[in-house]
């Protein structure tokens, strides 16, 4: 099959599964699960074929197939698939990690109500996410962007009888909407500016055409001359959409709450796919950001701050999933920081490895939660290493990868990110690099804390923990292999001369215009790697002193930094600030709107309706059921019309 056909298979196989389940097999649990897994497996299979083709082609290879979808005036909006190194890599992450999570769900969700609904939603989500990945233009991306929002809403609120889950779903949706609102305006503004400056032939929503436009440095500089402000604003507005999806401060508040969904959902959306969409979008549109050092600085600082703030929050969580949630926030901050430093390749590399080990950690936590009979509090765990050996060892590998221990996947990608920060030219790059190292230390420390609390010592709960079934442990093992070997995707130059097609996969991700200086992250920097590793080991050591050896007392330490601890427990008061904003500002505006609507608009409409009702009531008297009266009336009408026509002519 040719590439576009395979692209459409990748995109539509999960949708087909979702439709089949919704229409036909809602009552048959086993069939629904099998259909969903099959849909995902088909997508993965097609994806592997695409990858073999794309990664063998020379760098910069791109295959685009488009159908005309909308035509408004001179503007055509296509729908299609774009397969290049970036989208193929991202789709591989989504389908590969996704398939593991689908299989894991077979076991994890076994006793849940609405098993079929779960798999339908999961498949719909996979479809939406793949839609973003293979999209050829901004409008198509936006449509799937919103679809991801909707399907994640339905998955986070899966336990809809629980108020907290419903609230979390709403919060995720609304927070994302705020970002999407910015994104809508960003897309419109970008198109409008290019339309004004270059005319209808040049302006386009299509990534490829925009990219081509930006390749011409002279032309773009000329446009920027007159529209510098609007273009920069458009770029940053599009970034707000990405920031909301990738949960960057201050739009991060939805992600920790989204842990209300089933654990595999957390693994799928909040580790591998949905939150990665923002990073992916910025990588895809990196040429927009490249000419604006200020925009890149905003991106880098937003990422750095998110990485730091979220890592600190992870220390005060006792819910094992919340620890991972804040860890995800922090790692996303890393990726966004790498983007801001001008290195989408490092960001995509970290995204890929992170998808593997974070999905592994989430599924591991799911296995723990399943084994402990839905206990999520780490204070009621402990000693699980012996009772759940597979989960323990895979979780340990995930932790090692996340902490950045040599030679696990995280070591290489974290090194790439820190290398990008080290070489970056953004204002305050040195500070950001320092923060990055600090975050590496914190990451190792909170993950160490999580591991020791969960798996070491004696069991402190009241259930009877047991190892999970094979459908759950097998995906853990597969993902663990990814977490160990993921680094091979992009071994830095200086270590290896040619790493074959896998390295090529990521060098193809270069998305900046060719005139933009590529950040130097390819070269292995022993000092950067050494400092990063030292930070990771220091973090593990501190965690061991606190929670392994228990030489230092965590309680005593907390007592000494009480105000800081309160600040962290209250999550920097972000939620309270938003609540205040809603109560004090939005609620008052709503009252005024309510008055206008109920007292003025509705009065007007009601009066209009009453007049019509009265007229209707009068006419009704004529229609008493005698057919002959109806005929007579109709005849009268005909006579009147004929008379009118005759008089008129």
């Amino acid at each position, binding site marked *: 099959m040719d590439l576009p056909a395979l692209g459409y298979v990748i995109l539509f196989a999960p949708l087909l599964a979702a439709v089949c389940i919704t229409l036909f097999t809602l009552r048959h649990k086993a069939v629904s699960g099998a259909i969903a897994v099959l849909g995902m497996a088909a997508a993965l299979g097609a994806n592997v074929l695409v990858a073999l083709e794309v990664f063998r082609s020379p760098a910069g290879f791109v295959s685009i197939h488009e159908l005309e979808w909308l035509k408004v005036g001179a503007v055509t909006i296509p729908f299609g698939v774009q397969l290049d190194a970036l989208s193929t890599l991202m789709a591989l992450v989504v389908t590969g990690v996704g398939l593991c999570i689908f299989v894991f769900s077979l076991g994890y969700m076994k006793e849940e109500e609405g098993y079929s609904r779960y798999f339908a939603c999961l498949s719909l989500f996979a479809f939406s996410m793949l839609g973003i990945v293979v999209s050829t233009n901004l409008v198509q991306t936006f449509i799937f962007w919103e679809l991801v929002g909707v399907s994640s809403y339905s998955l986070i609120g899966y336990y809809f009888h629980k108020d907290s889950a419903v609230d979390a779903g709403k919060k995720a949706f609304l927070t994302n909407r705020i970002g999407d609102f910015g994104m809508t305006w960003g897309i419109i503004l970008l198109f409008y500016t290019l339309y004004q400056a270059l005319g209808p032939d040049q302006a386009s929503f299509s990534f490829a055409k925009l990219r081509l436009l930006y390749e011409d440095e002279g032309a773009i500089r000329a446009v920027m001359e007159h529209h510098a402000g609007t273009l920069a604003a458009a770029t940053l507005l599009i970034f707000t959409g990405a920031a909301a999806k990738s949960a960057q401060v201050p739009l991060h508040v939805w992600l920790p709450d989204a842990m209300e969904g089933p654990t595999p959902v957390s693994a799928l959306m909040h580790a591998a796919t949905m939150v990665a969409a923002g990073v992916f979008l910025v990588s895809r549109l990196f040429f927009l950001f490249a000419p604006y050092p200020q925009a890149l600085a905003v991106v880098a600082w937003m990422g750095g701050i998110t990485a730091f703030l979220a890592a600190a929050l992870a220390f005060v969580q006792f819910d094992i999933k919340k620890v991972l949630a804040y860890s995800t926030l922090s790692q996303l901050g890393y990726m966004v920081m790498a983007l801001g430093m001008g290195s989408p390749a490092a960001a995509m590399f970290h995204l890929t490895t992170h998808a593997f080990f974070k999905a592994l950690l989430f599924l591991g936590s799911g296995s723990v939660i399943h084994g402990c009979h839905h206990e999520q509090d780490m204070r009621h765990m402990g000693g699980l290493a012996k009772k759940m050996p597979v989960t323990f060892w895979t979780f340990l590998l995930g932790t090692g990868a996340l902490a950045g221990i040599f030679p696990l996947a995280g070591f290489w990608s974290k090194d790439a990110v820190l290398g990008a920060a080290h070489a970056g030219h953004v204002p305050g790059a040195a500070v950001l690099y320092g923060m990055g190292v600090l975050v590496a230390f914190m990451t190792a420390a909170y993950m160490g804390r999580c591991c020791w609390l969960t798996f070491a010592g004696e069991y402190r709960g009241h259930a009877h923990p047991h190892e999970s079934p094979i459908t759950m442990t097998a995906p853990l093992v597969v993902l663990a292999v990814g977490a160990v070997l993921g680094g091979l995707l992009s071994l830095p130059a200086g270590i290896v001369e040619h790493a074959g097609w896998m390295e090529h996969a990521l060098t193809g991700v270069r998305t900046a215009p060719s005139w933009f200086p590529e950040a130097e992250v390819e070269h292995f920097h022993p000092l950067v790697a050494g400092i990063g590793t030292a930070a990771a080991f220091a973090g593990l050591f501190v965690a061991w002193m606190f929670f392994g050896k228990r030489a230092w007392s965590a309680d005593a330490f907390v007592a000494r930094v009480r105000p800081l601890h309160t600040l962290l427990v209250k999550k920097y008061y972000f939620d309270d600030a938003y609540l205040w904003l809603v109560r004090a500002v939005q609620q008052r505006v709503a009252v005024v709107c309510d008055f206008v609507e109920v007292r003025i608009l509705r009065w007007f409409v009601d009066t209009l309706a009453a007049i019509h009702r009265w007229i209707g009531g009068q006419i009704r008297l*004529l*229609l*008493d*059921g*005698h*057919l*002959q009266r109806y005929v*007579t009336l109709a*005849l009268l009408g005909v006579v009147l019309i004929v008379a009118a026509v005759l008089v008129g002519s």
Partner: protein
Amino acid sequence: MDRVFGEITTSHYVVLSALIFAVGLCGVVTRRNAVVILMSLELMLNGANLAFVAFSRHHANLQGQVFVFFVIAVAAAEAAVALAIIIALNRVKGGVSIDDATELRG
């Protein structure tokens, strides 16, 4: 005969057709017996048919005559349906006066 009545032109046919149609219409509007209304309805259709044929001859075009066949076919079907309704009406109301059937009220 032509001497007595003059030539029979298209106008004559059209006037006759209008008269037949008007008679049928009066029947439909004024009579109370459903069977008679049905008959009046048929009269209206035939009035229209006559006009079709007249114009068909006038324009030397067979389309009007073809149309008449369709009208006759439809009229037959309509008569079958209407008679069935009238029989049902007779069973339910015990008569065929349409003053009794006034359920179709606004």
